[in-house]
C-alpha cells in the first residue's frame, strides 16, 4: 500500500482537485435532496401553487447537473491519474533497464521483464482509477450527509452514525473468513482454469499416445470441478454483499421507524425533515458500500505494486564510461580483475593483454567463465575490482558510443529485430547500397538474398521470414563488416551450422582480423592454431597465457588440444 500511496502523492494537485470536487459533490447531493423535499412538501403538505415551487425545481436541475459534471470530472481525473502514473512508472523502468549492463541470464529473462513492464504496470489501474477517487468520496460524502442529517434531525443522525461501522466490520470479517478458506480454493481454482490450456497444449502428445479420445471426458470432469470451486468462492462474496445489503436495509428501516414514531407518536417531526432523511439515507449507505467494492479491486494492484517497487529499487551496477574518444589500433589490458555473479562463480584474473591487431584466443573446458571474460573485456559488464586499460587509459574514461562504434561482438545466438534484412544489417546507421553490397558479399549472404523476391528489403525477425541459425550468424557478420571495427569480440558458435556457413565464418574472421584486434572464445581447432596468443581459463582463473608454443609447454589442456595431430 505504501508504494501505491507514494506514487499517488506525487500528483498532489490531482488529489487536491479531487478533494475539492468531491466537496462540491457532497453539497450537490444535499441540495438535491433538499430541493426534492421542498417540492413535495410544497405541493403535498403546504398546498402551495406550482409556480411557488418552480424555484426549487430549478435548483434541483442545477444540483443534478452539477452532480453529473462532478462525477464525470472525478472519473476523468481518476483515469488521468492512472494513465499518468502508469506511464511514468513504465518510463522509469525503461530508463533503469537502459542503464543496466547486459544481463548474464541473457534472454531467459525476457518473459519476466515483459510481464513486469506490461502486465504489472497495467494492474495498477484499478487502484488509481477507482480506489483513490472512491476513498476521497467516502471520506467526504458520508460525513457531509451525516452533518446535514444531524442538523435536520439528530436522532436519525445517531442511527446513521451507529449503523455505519457495521459495513466495514462485515467487510473485514468476511474478508478474514475468505482469506482462510479461499487460499486452498484459489489454488484449486488456478489448477482448474489452467487445465483447459494444459489439455489443449498436451493434445498432440496425448494423441500420439492414443489418448486423444478420452480427453473430452477429462475436460468435462475438470469443468465440473471448476464450477464447484468457483461457486463456493463466489458464495462467500455474495453472502458478504447479502449481509451488507441487509445492514443497509435494516438501517433504512430503523430510520423509517424512528421517523414514523417521531411524526406520529411524539409529533416532534414534520414531513419535510423526515422526507429529507429518507431521501438522503441511501446516498449515505451506498457510498460506504462502494468503498468496500473499490477496496476489493484496489487490492488487486497491491501485489503488482510490490513487484514493481522491488524492480525499481533494485541496485544496478551500470558500466562506467567517460568522455575521451577511442582511437585505433587498440591495445587492451586487464589488471587484477575480478567478477562474479549469482554468488557461485568468480572470475579472477591478474593480467591479460591483447596488443594492437593481435589475435587473442580464450580456451578452456566448458563452464569456466570464458564468455563472461569476453563480456568483461567487451565492456558489457564492469569488473568488480581491477581495471581494464585501453591504449594506456582506463576504460571508464572512454566515451561509450565511440567504443561501440569501433567494436563488434559476434555472439553464439545473434538476435534479429523485426524489420528488413537491410535494417538488421545497418542497425540504425545509414550506409550506401555499395557499402551494404560489400558487407553482404563478405558475409556470404549474396546467394540467399538473390533468391528472395524482395532482396534485402525482405522482412525478418518476429512476424517476418524465419532464418536458420547459420543465416543469422551471417547477418551478424554483415553487421560487423559494415562497422569496420578496430576491435572484434567473437564467441564462436559450438554447433549446428551448415558446412557453407562454417567456411564463410572462418574466411570472414580472417579478413576482419587484418585490421583489428581480435579476441575469440574458441571452440574450433583451426581458430586456436591461428592465434597469436592463447589464454587458458580454468575455474575462472588464467592458468596459462602467451604465444602458442609457450602455452603448450605450460598447460596440459592446451597441449592436448594442439599436439593431438590434425584429426582429433
Amino acid at each position, binding site marked *: 500500500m505504501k508504494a501505491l500511496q507514494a506514487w499517488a502523492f506525487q500528483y498532489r494537485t490531482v488529489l487536491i482537485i479531487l478533494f475539492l470536487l468531491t466537496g462540491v459533490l457532497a453539497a450537490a447531493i444535499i441540495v438535491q435532496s433538499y430541493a426534492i423535499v421542498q417540492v413535495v412538501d410544497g405541493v403535498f403538505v403546504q398546498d402551495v401553487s406550482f409556480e411557488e415551487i418552480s424555484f426549487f425545481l430549478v435548483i434541483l436541475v442545477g444540483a443534478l447537473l452539477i452532480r453529473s459534471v462532478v462525477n464525470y470530472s472525478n472519473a476523468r481525473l481518476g483515469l488521468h491519474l492512472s494513465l499518468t502514473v502508469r506511464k511514468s512508472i513504465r518510463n522509469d523502468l525503461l530508463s533503469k533497464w537502459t542503464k543496466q549492463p547486459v544481463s548474464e541470464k541473457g534472454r531467459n529473462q525476457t518473459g519476466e521483464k515483459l510481464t513486469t513492464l506490461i502486465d504489472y504496470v497495467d494492474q495498477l489501474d484499478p487502484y488509481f482509477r477507482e480506489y483513490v477517487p472512491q476513498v476521497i468520496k467516502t471520506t467526504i460524502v458520508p460525513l457531509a450527509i451525516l452533518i446535514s442529517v444531524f442538523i435536520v434531525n439528530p436522532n436519525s443522525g445517531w442511527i446513521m452514525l451507529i449503523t455505519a461501522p457495521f459495513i466495514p466490520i462485515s467487510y473485514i470479517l468476511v474478508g478474514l473468513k475468505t482469506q482462510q478458506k479461499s487460499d486452498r480454493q484459489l489454488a484449486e481454482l488456478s489448477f482448474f482454469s489452467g487445465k483447459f490450456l494444459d489439455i489443449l497444449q498436451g493434445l498432440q502428445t496425448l494423441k500420439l499416445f492414443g489418448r486423444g479420445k478420452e480427453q473430452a471426458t477429462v475436460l468435462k470432469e475438470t469443468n465440473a470441478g471448476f464450477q464447484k470451486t468457483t461457486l463456493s468462492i463466489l458464495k462467500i462474496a455474495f453472502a458478504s454483499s447479502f449481509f451488507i445489503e441487509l445492514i443497509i436495509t435494516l438501517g433504512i428501516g430503523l430510520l423509517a421507524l424512528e421517523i414514523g414514531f417521531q411524526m406520529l407518536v411524539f409529533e416532534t417531526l414534520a414531513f419535510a425533515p423526515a422526507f429529507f432523511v*429518507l431521501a438522503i439515507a441511501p446516498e449515505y449507505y451506498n457510498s460506504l458500500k462502494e468503498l468496500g467494492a473499490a477496496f476489493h479491486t484496489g487490492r488487486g494492484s497491491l501485489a503488482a505494486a510490490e513487484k514493481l517497487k522491488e524492480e525499481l529499487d533494485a541496485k544496478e551496477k551500470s558500466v562506467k564510461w567517460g568522455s575521451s574518444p577511442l582511437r585505433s589500433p587498440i591495445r587492451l589490458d586487464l589488471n587484477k580483475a575480478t567478477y562474479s555473479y549469482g554468488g557461485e562463480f568468480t572470475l579472477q584474473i591478474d593480467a591479460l593483454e591483447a596488443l594492437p591487431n593481435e589475435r587473442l584466443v580464450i580456451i578452456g573446458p566448458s563452464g569456466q567463465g570464458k564468455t563472461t571474460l569476453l563480456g568483461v573485456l567487451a565492456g558489457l559488464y564492469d569488473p568488480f575490482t581491477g581495471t581494464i586499460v585501453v591504449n594506456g587509459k582506463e576504460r571508464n574514461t572512454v566515451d561509450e558510443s565511440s567504443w561501440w562504434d569501433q567494436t563488434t561482438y559476434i555472439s553464439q545466438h545473434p538476435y534479429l529485430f523485426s524489420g528488413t534484412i537491410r535494417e538488421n544489417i545497418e542497425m540504425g546507421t545509414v550506409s550506401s547500397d555499395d557499402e551494404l553490397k560489400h558487407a553482404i558479399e563478405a558475409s556470404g549472404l549474396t546467394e540467399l538474398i538473390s533468391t528472395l523476391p524482395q532482396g534485402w528489403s525482405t522482412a525478418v525477425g518476429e512476424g517476418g521470414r524465419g532464418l536458420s541459425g547459420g543465416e543469422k550468424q551471417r547477418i551478424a557478420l554483415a553487421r560487423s563488416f559494415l562497422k569496420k571495427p578496430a576491435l572484434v569480440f567473437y564467441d564462436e558458435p559450438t554447433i549446428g551450422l551448415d558446412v557453407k556457413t562454417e567456411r564463410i565464418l572462418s574466411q570472414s574472421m580472417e579478413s576482419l582480423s587484418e585490421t583489428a584486434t581480435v579476441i575469440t572464445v574458441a571452440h574450433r581447432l583451426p581458430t586456436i592454431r591461428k592465434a597469436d596468443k592463447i589464454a587458458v581459463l580454468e575455474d575462472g582463473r588464467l592458468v596459462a597465457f602467451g604465444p602458442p608454443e609457450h602455452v603448450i609447454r605450460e598447460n596440459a589442456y592446451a597441449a592436448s588440444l594442439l599436439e593431438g595431430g590434425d584429426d582429433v
Partner: protein
Amino acid sequence: MKELISLLAEERKDVAIAIALGAVSGLTAIALFAQSGFLISQAALSPPFYTILILTAFLKLFGAVKSSSKYFERLISHRVTFQALSRIREHFFAQLSPLVPQIFTRYRSGDLLSRFVSDVEIIQNFFLRVVYPPLVTAVVFLATVFFTLFFSIWLALVMILGFLLVALVIPALFSERLRRNDVLVRRAAVATEAAEYIAGFRELKLHNQVKQKEQAVQQAQEAYIREQRQVGNVQLWSQTLNASVASLTAFGILAVGAYLVAQGELNGLFLAMLTLVALTSFETAVPIAGVPGHLHESRQALNRLQVVVDEQPPHHYEKLNQASAYSLHVQNVNYLYPEADRFTLKNLNLELIAGTRTALVGASGSGKSTLLQLLAGMASPTSGDIRVNHQSLTALDPESLWNVVGVQLQTSHFFYGTIRENLAIANPNAQDQELQDALEKAQFIIELDAPVFERGENLSGGEKQRLALARLFLTKKAIYLFDEPFTSLDYQTEKNLTDELWKHSMGSTIVLVSHKLSGLEQMDQIVVLDHGQIVEKGSYEELMTQKGVFYEMKQIESTIL
C-alpha cells in the same frame, strides 16, 4: 451467434429462474423505496398508528426479500454462466480436437491455444453481460411503468421516454465509437517493441541503439496511453449521459407530478413515493450501457474461434493394415509451410526398409525435423506421397497410425500432476513396478508421486527428456521416430540411453534426427539433408569413404571442442 444461443438454450430453466430472481430483486428494491416514501407521506397525514406499523413491517419484508433474491439471483446467474462455459469449452474442444496436430503447421501452437482459451473466456460472459441485463431491465421497467400508469399516464410517459433514452438511444450512440477501439492492438504493439528491447538488449548496446529502442517503446506506450484515454473518455461520456438522463427523468417525474398535484389531478400522498421509484428504477438500467460493447467482443471472439475450427479436418478413411513390421517410402515429397515463400522440403525420395535404423542429419534449417513430422503424420506433404507398407499415409486414420508409431519430439508436453500420471499416458494399465522400471531404464531417479508442474516447469531440460524417454519405454511400437531426443544430456548419459533405446526398439523401423554426428556408426542408413534436399545417403562407412558432405561435416565436428 446462433450456436451460442442454442448452447445457452440448454440451460433455459436456470436462465428463466435467474431472470425471474433478477426481476424480483430489482422490483423489491423499487418497492422498498416506494414504500418508505409512501410511509412518511402517510405519517404526515396523522393516520392511526397501526397503519405505520403495518407499513414498516412491509418495509422489512421488502428489504429481506430484496437482499435474499439478490443473493440467489447472483448464485444462479453465475451457475448458468459456468454451465455455459463448460458447454462452450466442450463444444469448441470437440471441434478443435480433430485438427490437432496438423493445425499447428498453420498457427504457432502457443498463440493459437492461448488465444483459443481467452476467446472462450470472453464468450463465457455472453450470458451475464449480453443476454441477461436487457431481459431483467425490461421486466423491471415494464412493471414500474405499469405501476406508474395507475397514478398518471403522463408520469408513465415520462418514464418510458427516459427508459428509451437510457437503454437504447444512448448506448446506440456510443456503441460505434467504443467498438472501434484499438486498445488491445496498441498494447500488443508496446509488448512487441518491449520484447525486442529486452531480448535484443545486447545487440542494441553493441550498436549504440539502446536509447533509440527505448524511445521506440516510449512512443508505442504513448500511443497506447492516448488510445486508452480516448476510449476511456468516450466510456465516461456515455456513462455520464446515461446517469444524467436517468436523474433528469426522476426530475421530470417530480416536476410533472408536482404540477399534477398542484392542479389537483394527482393525490399528493403519492408524489414522494413516485419520485423515489423513478430514482431507483434506473439502477437496473446501468449495465445496459455495456451491452453493445460486450456483444461486439463476444462476436469477435466467436469469429476468431470460427476461423480456427472452420479449418477442414483432414479426411482419413483407411485403417492401417496390421503387420509385424512396417517400411516407409517417401515419394517425390515437397513441403511448403503455410505462408512460407520457399519450400522446406524439395522433391524428396527415400526408402526406409522395415526394421532398419535411419539417421537424418544436416544443419539447422535443413528440413530434417520437418521430414520427421511428415513421417509421423503430424503434417501432410504439399505434394508427393509417403507410403506405410503400401498404404498412403495421408489417407490413413491418424489414430490407427499412432497405434504403431512412437514419437519423441525435441520438446514433449508434460501435464500438471505427478510423475505417475505423466507416465500413465503411455500405458494406463501399467503397474507401479513397470513405471519404475521404465524410469530406471531412462536413468531418471524420481518418486512416482513427485509433483510435475504445468508444462513440466519444475523439471530441467535433461529430466524432461529422460521422462519422455521413460514414457516411450512403456510402449512397444513397430516404428519409432526420434527428433534429437538427447540434446540436454551429457555425453555419457546420452550414450547409455542410446544403447538402452536400441535394445528396446530392436526390430522396429527407426528414424533418428540428429545434429551430432557421433554414434552414427550403428545406423543402417545416414541421410544428409541440406536446404530441404537429400545431398547424400548411405551407411557410415560408405559416406566416410566417399569423402563428400558428410565427411566434411564430420571433419568440422572433429575440430569443435
